[in-house]
């Protein structure tokens, strides 16, 4: 298709604007079929069309690369000047649950513990039915209801806004689970996927690296017996990497960054008209935005 119209050698620079190329490509086979070989020969003999080369591709064509650069830029600031936030484009989310699985793998989550389920909602009635998918991480609320209820200060808000759980202080009363209006906290009951089988598999003893520490599960020691939740993959962030759910999203539906950086993509998205936050009426002020 392109070979019939492109005369410039293959290079990283595109000789034709994409739209023009597409139009030409779609039109050419039909024209050739109608006009026959003569016309095709004449077209081949015609001089090459003058095209304006496209600018070289930039890194920020890919939002992941841009967001990663922004994360690294934010890390150069003091922690109290960062405000980590996430945006999820519901128009783009296809409900593949890749983010859920990536999170389970990244944090070595045991059975019954999930940080980012994808809620499926069905709208309308047959024959006019549509579905929407709502990934639900921890909202990292600015006013988190789970924090003040903890009797031993085991859960608290970091200066960058992420709500953290001190696994070694948590007594496992599950009051914070009852207090979360988003169902974003789950309890680790110390189970393994291979319970009831002849042998526990090695992958279940692999340590997770939540909160920058190594946590090996034996079913009794923390994080077993604790409340657990999404922490925006703090251990990855501290290493300059995006959260696992962001990098795994195949449709670029999840965005992440420092809300205090006006040049960042997350700042740009948070200012859009189609932004909503879940259960805003509760005054929790979530740091997870949804683009509808």
């Amino acid at each position: 298709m392109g070979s019939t119209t492109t005369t410039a050698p293959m290079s990283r620079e595109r000789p034709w604007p994409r739209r023009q190329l597409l139009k030409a490509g779609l039109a050419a086979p039909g024209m050739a079929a109608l006009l026959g070989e003569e016309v095709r020969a004449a077209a081949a003999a015609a001089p090459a069309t003058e095209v304006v080369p496209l600018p070289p591709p930039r890194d920020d064509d890919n939002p992941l690369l841009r967001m990663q650069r922004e994360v690294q830029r934010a890390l150069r600031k003091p922690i109290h000047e960062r405000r980590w936030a996430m945006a999820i484009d519901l128009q783009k989310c296809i409900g593949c649950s890749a983010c859920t699985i990536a999170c389970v793998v990244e944090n070595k989550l045991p059975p019954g513990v999930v940080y980012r389920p994808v809620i499926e909602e069905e709208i309308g009635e047959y024959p006019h039915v549509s579905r929407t998918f709502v990934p639900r991480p921890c909202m990292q609320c600015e006013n988190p209801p789970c924090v003040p209820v903890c009797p031993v200060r085991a859960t608290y808000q970091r200066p960058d806004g992420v709500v953290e759980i001190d696994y070694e202080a948590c007594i496992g009363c599950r009051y914070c689970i009852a207090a979360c209006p988003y169902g974003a906290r789950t309890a680790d009951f110390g189970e393994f996927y291979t319970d009831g089988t002849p042998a526990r598999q090695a992958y279940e003893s692999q340590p997770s690296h939540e909160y920058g520490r190594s946590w090996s599960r034996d079913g009794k020691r923390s994080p077993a017996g604790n409340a657990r939740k999404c922490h925006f993959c703090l251990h990855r962030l501290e290493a300059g990497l995006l959260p696992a759910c962001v990098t795994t999203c195949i449709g670029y539906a999840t965005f992440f960054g420092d809300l205090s950086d006006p040049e960042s993509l997350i700042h740009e998205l948070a200012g859009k008209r189609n932004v909503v936050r879940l259960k805003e009426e509760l005054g929790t002020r979530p740091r997870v935005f949804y683009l509808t």
Partner: protein
Amino acid sequence: MLRASKLLIPLLVAAVAVGGIGVWQRLVLGERYLALGSYIPWGLWVGLYVYLVGISGGAFLVAFLHYALGVGSMRRPGRYAIPFALASLGGGLALVQLDLGHMDRFWTLFTRTSPASLLGWMVWVYTLYALVLAAMLGAMALESRRALRWLAVAGFVLVVTFGGGEGALFGVLGARPFWSSGSLPIRFLSSAFLSGMAAVTFVVAAFRRWPADAEHQAASWFLRRALLGLLALNIVIEVLEVSVTLYTGLPPVVETYHLLMFGPYWWMFWVLQLAVGLAIPLALLASPAGARPAWLGLAGFLVAVGYAGTKQNLVGVGFLVPEFRRLPEAFVHPRLSVTYFPSATEWFVAAGVIGAAALAFVVAIEVLPFLKNHEEWGAARGETRRLAA
């Protein structure tokens, strides 16, 4: 030994033995054998904790009436009320301790208390209350009326604090529309007074050591009327709460009430809560039969049992409507479900802890001389004092 004690002690020992199996499972195998999950994080044990701590406070009211307010007819019930309150408090706190994911860290509740957490404050209030109860037992042994009076006042302040505070633990959860209400502390307090006084009424009828004299008649007369009054107060409060909240039509609240009445545990509401805990005792107390000590004791027993169901319903049903309609289907696992029925471990432990608390009470009134022979004990202490003077 009293006939009721002879009958009950073997049963209670059996309950404790069964509880031992459950406690062993809990300690050795962890939380794996609990039927709880992340969407229903509290179950039978928390429901019973709320209930037992509540009846402890209600029982204390009886002691307060005698020792602080000087209600003479409550002398004998007031004496039983203190060990009963201590035993039920211990049972409730033992259950909630076993419910913790990390029982070994319970002491951090004292060393790392969050001043912003109601639960953190409650731990201190419970501790002070337990100390007051223990001190009152000591003061009863010493027949120190002055100490008993001041301890009764201090204890009553603590009872009102934690009785309302328990309701506030649930009421402050804005995430749970069924609970989130300023009236919940009042509801908890009034139901605690009712169930605690009812439990003492039953205990007095079942473990009576004294003749059915004029003082006993006066005690029965008082308890009957007090129970009727508290039942009426509870009915008014509950009817107001239910009618007003249902009228608002808030979907999660309406749905929760619907589940309460017609959901999987409909029988808890209609049979245990309404019939056993309300209608039958109300009929017994209002009829002439209510004047007879045995029927009065039965009415007290039914109210106490019914209110165990009430608290269980309140705790359990509050979680049945998920935060998002489709959340339980988003990631499927038994721990991520909005259905709950206690596991065998939970039943065993509950039976064992309640059995142990009841056994502690029965042993106390059978062994401690100032409880077993308190008529003579009081006279003897008075004689000793007179001689010393």
